[in-house]
C-alpha cells in the first residue's frame, strides 16, 4: 500500500500537469501573450475556489462529525441567488452593472457570513444538534428559493437573463482585484486553521473525547464554523453557486488518501478539488466548446463516480 505522502506527491504531479495543459493548449507565437493574460487569472481563480470549497467541506465534516453533510446544507447558494435577484429586482441590471462587481462581491460576502453566523447562533442554542442545522438550512434555503423565483417571475425577461447567467458557475470574467482579496482571505483562514491542525484530529473523535483530551471543543467549533462560512461565502460570491463540489471532493479524498490526519487530508482534498475543477473546466472549454457549464460536467462525472462507489460497496457486502 502506498503511504500518505507519496499519494500527496502523485496528486501534486497530476495537479501541475493539468495546470500546464490548461495554460499551454492552443498557444502559438502570435496569441500567447493575450491567451496567457486571460488564462492565468482564470486558473488562479479555479485553484482558489477548488481549494477553498474542499477545505471548508473537510472542516465542516469534522466539526459536525458527519460524512454526508457539506456546507451546502447551510443554504448559502440560495441566499446568493436571492441577493443577486433582489439587486436586479430593485435596482435593475443597469444599476447593478453600474455599482460594479466589487460592490456586489462585498455585499454578498457580508450578507452570507452574517446569515451563517445567525444560523450558527441558533444552532448553539439548541445544544449543537446537527438536525437543527440541517433543518434551518433547508427551511431558509427553500424560503430564499421561493422568494427568488417570485421576483424572477415578475421582472423583465432581459433582466432575467442577467440573473440566469449568475446562477451558473463561471470562471470567464474574473476580476483581478476581487481575486486578490479572496486569495488573501483564504490564505489567512488557512494559516489560522493550520495552527490548530492537531486539535481537528482530536475533534473527529467526537465532543466528549475531545474535551477529555483537553480541546476547548465548543469554542473551537464556533471558530471553525465561521472559517467555513467565510470560505464558502468568498467562493460563492466570486464565481457563483459552487458548493455542490464539496460532497464529491471530500468523498474522493477520503477514499483516496485514507487518513484521519488533517495535515494530510486538508492539502490532499485541496489538490483533488483543484484537479477536478481544472479538469472540468478543460473538458467544458476544449471538448464541449463552452457549450456546457462546468457545473454540469462535474456533476455528470461525479454522479458516475458515486454510482461506481455504491455498486462497489454493494459487492463488498
Amino acid at each position, binding site marked *: 500500500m502506498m503511504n500518505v505522502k507519496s499519494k500527496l506527491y502523485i496528486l501534486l504531479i497530476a495537479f501541475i500537469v493539468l495546470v500546464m495543459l490548461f495554460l499551454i493548449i492552443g498557444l502559438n507565437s502570435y496569441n500567447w501573450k493575450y491567451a496567457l493574460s486571460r488564462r492565468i487569472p482564470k486558473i488562479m481563480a479555479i485553484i482558489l475556489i477548488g481549494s477553498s470549497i474542499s477545505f471548508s467541506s473537510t472542516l465542516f465534516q469534522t466539526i459536525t*462529525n*458527519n*460524512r454526508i453533510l457539506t456546507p451546502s446544507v447551510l443554504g448559502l447558494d440560495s441566499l446568493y441567488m436571492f441577493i443577486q435577484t433582489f439587486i436586479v429586482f430593485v435596482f435593475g441590471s443597469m444599476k447593478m452593472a453600474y455599482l460594479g462587481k466589487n460592490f456586489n462581491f462585498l455585499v454578498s460576502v457580508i450578507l452570507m457570513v452574517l446569515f451563517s453566523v445567525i444560523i450558527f447562533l441558533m444552532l448553539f442554542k439548541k445544544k449543537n444538534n446537527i438536525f437543527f442545522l440541517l433543518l434551518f438550512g433547508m427551511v431558509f434555503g427553500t424560503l430564499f428559493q421561493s422568494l427568488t423565483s417570485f421576483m424572477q417571475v415578475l421582472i423583465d425577461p432581459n433582466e432575467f437573463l442577467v440573473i440566469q447567467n449568475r446562477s451558473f458557475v463561471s470562471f470567464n470574467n474574473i476580476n483581478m482585484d476581487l481575486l486578490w482579496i479572496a486569495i488573501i482571505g483564504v490564505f489567512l483562514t488557512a494559516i489560522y486553521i493550520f495552527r490548530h*491542525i*492537531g*486539535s481537528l*484530529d*482530536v475533534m*473527529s*473523535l*467526537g*465532543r*466528549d*473525547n475531545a*474535551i*477529555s*483530551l*483537553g*480541546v*476547548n471543543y465548543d469554542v473551537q467549533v464556533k471558530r471553525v464554523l465561521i472559517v467555513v462560512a467565510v470560505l464558502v461565502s468568498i467562493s460563492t460570491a466570486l464565481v457563483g453557486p459552487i458548493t455542490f463540489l464539496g460532497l464529491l471532493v471530500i468523498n474522493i479524498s477520503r477514499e483516496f488518501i*485514507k487518513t*484521519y490526519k488533517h495535515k494530510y487530508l486538508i492539502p490532499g482534498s485541496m489538490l483533488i478539488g483543484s484537479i477536478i475543477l481544472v479538469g472540468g473546466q478543460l473538458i467544458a472549454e476544449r471538448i464541449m466548446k463552452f457549450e456546457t457549464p462546468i457545473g454540469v460536467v462535474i456533476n455528470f462525472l461525479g454522479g458516475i463516480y458515486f454510482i461506481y462507489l455504491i455498486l462497489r460497496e454493494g459487492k463488498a457486502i
Partner: protein
Amino acid sequence: MIEVKNVVKEYNGFKVLDNISLKINKGMVTSFIGPNGAGKSTLLSIISRLIDRDGGEVYIDGKEIRDWDSGELARKISILKQFNHINIRLTVRELVSFGRFPYSQGRLTKEDWQKVDEAIRYMKLEDIQHKYLDNLSGGQKQRAFIAMVIAQDTEYILLDEPLNNLDIKHSVDIMKTLRRLANELGKTIIIVIHDINFASCYSDYIVVLNNGRIAEEGRVDEILREEVLENIYELKFSIQNIGNNRICVYY
C-alpha cells in the same frame, strides 16, 4: 481530591441533580450506583466538564474546574463515556496515541510513543494493535478506549458504564484492570455502574444516587445492606457474604 459542592443541574425545570455535595478521595475506586435517571452519568459529566452545571462548584485538587486551563486539566483528569461511536477509521494504536494529545498536541515524541506502548501492553492489546476499530468486538473496543485513557496518564480516571454490553469475562477483566490501576499506579477511579455486585467486589467506596440526590455513601460494607438497597431500588434484597465479598441476590 475531587470536591463537589452544592451542584445543581436542571433540564427544563426538572432537577436532575439537586444540591449534590461529595468528596472523592485519592487512590480509591469509587462507584456511583443507583436506578436509571438518578443522575449518575450527569454528575460524572459535570465533574469532567463535559456538561455545564446550573449551580455549585467542582474543585479538583483545590482548584475550581472553570479556573483550570483546558489542556492542563486534560493531564489531570480523563473521562470515557459509554457511547463511543467514532466516524473515522482508526487502528487501535492510533486511537491509543490520541491519549498523548494533552502532552504533545499531536506531535508525539519518543517518550509519548513509549507511553502508548505501555498502555497497549497494560491492556494486552499487542496482538490487535494494528487492527481497525470497526473490525473489533465490543470488548476489544472497550479495552482499546481504556488503553487510550491509560496513555493519557491522568491522576483521575472517570468511566461511564465501562461494562456496558460486555460479557462477564470481559467485565471481570476490565474491573480487575481498574483495580490494578488504583493499586499499582495509585490512580483515582470513578465509575458509573449498574451491576451492584461488580461495584461491591471491586470498589472501595460507593455513592448511591436516587432522584438527583445522594441517598447514601460509604464503604462497601456500609452500603451493601438490605434495608439501604431495598429502600432505593424498591426490590427485595438478600445480601450474603461469599468469600470476602458481599453479594446481593435480588432476582
